[in-house]
């Protein structure tokens, strides 16, 4: 360790540290524009100047490059430092008078204007982009060219570079925002869409999935992370003070022995692209319900502002109910929650903008506590309700008022006329549909599907939380469309059901189970695929199929389907059936 004095305070730092790092350890603020934790010190911006006191007088050094030495005495706020730093910033302000970060720093130092002729550049030549591309990405696609007043950052020969991977690191590190990736690379820059924001914003390769994620820790997207793809970069590791980033970590599959399982795999929002007449995916301002949910959310991509793609506030918004649900062509079921969230959307648009709001509905299903009241309230807020399912969303205008608008065409069944509503934004309240992998999940947990593809409960009224298999419970929208209160209630019931099983400590099973006679089973395995409860396993060593009695429900499917008769149903043998048949056939004679 090395001990040095900064502004009169003594600090100990590791050998090889810089004065800037030592000062930061003391929480002494030294402004800088060209340092980056993950990059080597460079000393380009000169803003971090400090005064070093020596035996024969003092001198100025850039703190980011000057190594900390034993007994060094540093002054970061002397008149000489502040004066020189001001001159440096004045010169930078002359070069880049419009760059925010420079203007802010100058203002902090009490500088309002520069005395030097202004040049109007946007690059402060800090070299962060050059260094991140060379040091971290190992690409070197951009570099400094020329000297003195002609110095600039460019790809070689000022041509689009093929070695550039379009990773976007230069854009990210640039303090002034002057890097335009499209002028550097021959590749197509592809921002990584944020899954949680429905692709309305982009995210990095290391990211926290969403604000309340559990666990609330970042993950690395191995499909886009340069470190995992090429072995380069690794910048995030330099920032993590807890040293928690381990690039060598592999995906692991953990096996957990449990006594009960609650399946709560949720739903998938109907893909409105399937109904192309509503223009989803074609018009910028036709949004899915989930997209609007993110837009209207305070932590969403627009920070809660209801704005259109071009940033304008909408003048009129149409909310189209029953997209893909209650529709024989797509899903026959009512998705149950759309009427209420559509009313919420209408309320939010009214609250956040001055727009006219049109709700186009088949009929309004505001069932249950507080819902009808909310509907009345939204009616009172001046939202237009049109009873009729929207037929079409088009940008072909018929009148001057419709020009530049999206026109929603619908039959108003209360007025008996066809209406054309010119609006700026259309929100499609899509159906709740089963998850695309529900068939696979169902196979894993031996769950059946009801009509429409949602998991089947044991009884619609008497056992709505249980599945056909003991110990496997259903909760939430995987069992059928439902709103938050219902999902919470079902989740709590499922948890209680699971707990009561665990709490008892033992499981009571029916005596009528199947049994496979070991000496008779040829191991043909047909029964395994037939068992609806996944209660049969193949014993590879013995080459036989074995019934797990605890899982067997005694349905007899394996017994009926066993080609060699090795599977028997306890207390329900063929002989018994034959005796019964004989009894019936001879009954008349007795």
């Amino acid at each position, binding site marked *: 360790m090395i001990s040095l004095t900064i502004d009169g305070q003594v600090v100990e730092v590791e050998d090889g540290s810089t004065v800037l790092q030592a000062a930061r350890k003391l929480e002494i603020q030294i402004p800088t524009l060209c340092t980056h934790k993950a990059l080597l010190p460079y000393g380009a911006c000169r803003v971090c100047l400090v005064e070093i006191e020596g035996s024969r007088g003092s001198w100025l050094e850039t703190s980011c490059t000057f190594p900390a030495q034993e007994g060094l005495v540093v002054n970061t706020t002397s008149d000489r430092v502040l004066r020189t730093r001001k001159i440096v910033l004045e010169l930078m302000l002359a070069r880049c008078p419009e760059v925010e970060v420079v203007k802010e720093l100058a203002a902090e130092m009490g500088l309002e204007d520069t005395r030097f002729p202004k040049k109007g550049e946007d690059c402060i030549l800090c070299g962060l982009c050059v260094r991140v591309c060379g040091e971290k990405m190992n690409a070197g696609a951009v570099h400094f060219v020329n000297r003195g007043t002609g110095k600039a950052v460019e790809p070689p020969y000022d041509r689009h570079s093929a070695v550039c991977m379009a990773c976007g690191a230069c854009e990210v590190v640039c303090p002034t925002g002057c890097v335009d990736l499209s002028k550097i690379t021959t590749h197509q820059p592809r921002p990584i869409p944020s899954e949680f924001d429905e692709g309305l914003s982009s995210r990095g390769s290391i990211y926290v999935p969403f604000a309340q994620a559990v666990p609330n820790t970042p993950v690395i997207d191995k499909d886009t992370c340069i470190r995992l793809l090429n072995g380069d970069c690794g910048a995030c590791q330099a920032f993590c003070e807890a040293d928690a980033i381990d690039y060598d970590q592999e995906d692991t599959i953990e096996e957990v022995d449990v006594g009960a399982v609650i399946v709560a795999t949720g739903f998938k929002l109907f893909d409105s692209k399937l109904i192309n007449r509503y223009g989803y995916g074609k018009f910028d301002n036709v949004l899915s319900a989930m997209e609007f949910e993110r837009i209207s959310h305070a932590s969403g991509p627009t920070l809660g502002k209801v704005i259109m793609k071009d940033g304008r506030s909408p003048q009129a918004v149409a909310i189209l109910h029953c997209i893909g649900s209650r529709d024989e062509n797509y899903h026959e079921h009512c998705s149950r929650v759309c009427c209420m969230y559509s009313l919420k959307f209408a309320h939010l648009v009214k609250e956040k903008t001055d727009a006219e709001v049109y709700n186009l509905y088949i009929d309004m299903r505001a069932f249950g506590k507080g819902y009808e009241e909310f509907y009345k309230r939204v009616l009172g807020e001046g939202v237009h309700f049109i009873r009729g399912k929207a037929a079409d969303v088009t940008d072909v205008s018929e009148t001057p008022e419709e020009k530049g608008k999206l026109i929603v065409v619908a039959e108003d069944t209360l007025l008996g006329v066809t209406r054309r509503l010119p609006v700026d934004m259309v929100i499609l309240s899509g159906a709740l549909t089963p998850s695309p992998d529900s068939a696979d999940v169902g196979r894993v947990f031996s769950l059946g599907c009801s009509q429409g593809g949602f998991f089947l409960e044991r009884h619609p009224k008497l056992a709505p939380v249980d599945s056909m298999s003991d110990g496997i419970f259903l909760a939430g929208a995987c069992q059928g469309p439902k709103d938050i209160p219902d999902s919470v209630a079902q989740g709590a019931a499922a948890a209680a059901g699971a707990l009561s099983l665990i709490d008892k400590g033992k499981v009571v099973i029916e005596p009528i189970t199947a049994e496979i*006679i070991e*000496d*008779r*089973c*040829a*191991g*043909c*395995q*047909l029964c*395994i*695929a*037939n068992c609806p409860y996944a209660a049969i396993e193949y014993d590879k060593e013995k*080459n036989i199929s074995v019934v797990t009695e605890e899982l067997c429900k005694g349905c007899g*499917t394996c017994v*009926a*389907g*066993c*080609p*060699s*008769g*090795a599977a*028997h149903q306890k207390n329900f043998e*063929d002989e018994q059936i034959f005796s019964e048949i004989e009894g019936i056939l001879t009954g008349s004679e007795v």
Partner: protein
Amino acid sequence: MAKPKVAFYWCASCGGCEETIVDLAEDILGVVEAVDIALWPVAIDMKRKDVEAWEPGDVAVAFINGAVRLSEQKEWVELLREKCSLVIAFGSCAHMGGIPGLANATNREEIFANKYHRSPTVANPDGIVPQEQTNVDGYDLELPTFWKDVKPLNEVIDVDYYLPGCPPPFDLVATAVGAILEGKLPPKGSVIAPEKALCDTCERNDTKPDEMTITEFKRTATSTPDPEKCFLADGFLCMGPATRSGCGERCINGNMPCRGCFGPTPDAIDPGLKLLAAIASRGEADSEEDAKALADSLVDPLGTYYRFGLPASMLKRSADTERAQT
């Protein structure tokens, strides 16, 4: 001590079972060393009166192959039952009715009509049909009665053991003969073959997918099975899961699915029905049409599921025969 005597006899059969003995070639000398062959119509000329002259118990064992359909066959097997200590139903036909038993899918009148009238190679302008009693040139001729249906041997006489197979492989025959000579006999009525189904010994069993589904049946006549894969998984109907092992997988090694000649395992009441239930449970079709196409792709289901066992099955014979009887 005199060598024990054995008798071979044939009923409704093809001669393939005799071939098993003939196939021994010079090894038959070993057999002859151990036993005396007292009766073997395929090779030794003997008359009924010779057999009638035997004392009961003179002959240790009779190997009878072939199904029974003629009154003459009945007389012969009853005679052998009387004279021989043990009777072994030899081969699939004696065991379960076998290929001749497929005649139970139709009835006697149809068989005669086809054989003596309809067949394109038959010229029978006078419509002559064999009669049980005929007078030719003043001589009364007698022909055996052609029964209304085919019976397995155990429906005609008491059978001690069964040697399955079409024909039975010789190692099983040797096991049986060895057991008889040493007096280590299994319980009466046993089928002398392993009790597990063929999948137990089939090398292809490991290639079975976790979840087998059947969407169509292929025929060996029109497509060639994969030489490594489980036939069922490959789309060919294989009787292996419902058929006793012990055959040495002769068909499988020849890249042909099991045809079921060894008959059902001891727990299966009806071999065809058991396999039909198993196959039906794994059939997959999305619509009625697909289900029909799947069912239609199996040509001749009766002849496939009951190729060797129709007379011994729960079906026994076609309903036509049943009606003709009443």
